[in-house]
């Protein structure tokens, strides 16, 4: 069942075309990597999906509702870019940060209910950060902060999770663990996940759908189909050679 539908999307700022004629469908339970060069329009596409900016042309449907009329914001969890580079002087505990994920659907002058407190604990448990709940964000590593932001996005029990370059600023081992964690979320919770990455090699065996964008939609299909020299060359506008390492399932 299609959960996100994008049809003929154009977005430009002044005379500069950022995205042109983008169309694709994402189904419920898909685990989607959004690829493309810097300045190719990936973050803009995410912002359009979230309704943070409005397209010049085209339609976006989220959960069968036009984005312009979409009000169930708690059904989409969002993890922004550079969470590992968080301002260290901001005084916020892990628990306080995760509880902010409920702020969008809470009305003013209302306290957290017992059910919502349970949701917060569950989100922290899912992200394996329950033992860190009283720590300040400034005391955490980049990888731990990523998980805190994921927990914040999960606390409102979304159907779609969108992440903008979640692996920026963390080492390769933490990246692998993080993508494994996302894969588990996708499988166990049937959560639709869309994330921006530059590193197709790290996630090629995990995602079931790849969207490659460079102003236009260059490619939509499986990671294996994407990993052809032609697609990668077209996406990055330079001659590319793809080297396959068949070492899945053991140390390499």
């Amino acid at each position, binding site marked *: 069942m299609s959960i996100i539908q994008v049809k003929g999307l154009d977005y430009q700022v002044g005379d500069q075309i950022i995205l042109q004629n983008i169309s694709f469908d994402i189904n419920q339970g898909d685990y989607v990597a959004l690829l493309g060069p810097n300045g190719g329009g990936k973050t803009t596409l995410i912002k359009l999906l979230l309704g943070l900016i409005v397209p010049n042309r085209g339609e976006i449907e989220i959960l069968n509702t036009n984005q312009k009329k979409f009000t169930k914001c708690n059904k989409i969890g969002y993890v922004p870019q550079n969470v590992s580079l968080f301002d260290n002087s901001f005084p916020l505990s892990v628990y*306080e940060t995760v509880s902010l994920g409920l702020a969008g659907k809470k009305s003013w002058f209302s306290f957290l209910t017992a059910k919502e407190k349970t949701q917060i604990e569950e989100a922290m448990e899912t992200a394996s950060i329950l033992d860190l709940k009283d720590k300040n964000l400034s005391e955490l590593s980049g990888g731990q902060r990523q998980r805190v932001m994921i927990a914040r996005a999960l606390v409102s029990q979304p159907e779609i999770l969108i992440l903008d370059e979640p692996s920026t600023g963390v080492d390769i081992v933490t990246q692998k663990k993080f993508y494994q964690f996302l894969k588990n979320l996708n499988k166990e919770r049937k959560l639709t996940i869309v994330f921006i990455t530059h590193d197709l090699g790290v996630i090629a065996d995990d995602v079931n759908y790849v969207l490659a964008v460079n102003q236009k939609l260059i490619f939509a299909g499986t990671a294996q189909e994407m990993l052809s020299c032609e697609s990668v060359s077209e996406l990055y506008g330079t001659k590319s050679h793809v080297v396959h390492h068949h070492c899945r399932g053991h140390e390499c």
Partner: protein
Amino acid sequence: MLEIFDYDFMQRAFVVGIALSILTALLGSFIVLKRYAMLPDALSHIALLGVGIGLVTHSSPIYMPIVVAVVAGVAIEYLRYKKKLYSDAILSIFLSGALAMAVVLINLSDGFNASLFSYLFGSITAVSDEEMILTLIFTAFALSILIGSYRQMLFVTLDEETAQASGIKVFLLNIILVVLSAVTVALAMRIVGILLIGALMVLPISTALLYKENFFKTVLMAIIFSFTSVISGLFISFYLGISSGAAVVLVALLFFILSLFINL
């Protein structure tokens, strides 16, 4: 009972001071964490423009600064959020522009006198009954808004974009914060002074941040620092005969310096 409380003007100064110490600490917490610490300074200079307009037009010295500060505050936030202009540049333009206009108006009204000095540096004798009642009503209103929306306000302070994506009305909350700050600055200028109100909003939270606690404890500490600074400052002002604003800010500065050493 202490002799200081025999005087009506000191009773009013303490009532207004206590109310404003809590409110400025809470507002200052959001403002400083938004990296918007120049806002109170800009608003206080804009309030001085309101004083100038009041002198020229012979209108209320209480309400005109409030109206002018609120209108300018909304304009500042509109230019920052909607037009994406640099916030420090906008604040600098409004601050210097308002100050220049205020000086011209005060020149025209021949108003450079002791009364103006009390606006600049604060005076414990300056608070009237009307201002005290207005301050108490506004403080109750502003505190209820800030406490009622604190979770949304905190999310916006931390990350405007993600807050907007989660359905929070970011621009509305920013406007509320700026308007509450504008009215607070205009009310506080009589007791703390236009040139020093910015420090009262920024110093307590900056001191509390040195202790690296969570948000709730940090704000609570900021309120305690602010409250203690105002009470001590008013006592010092009364017994040493110095400007109340200067005394309050110097105590707040002392807390900051001591905390800096404690947390080295």
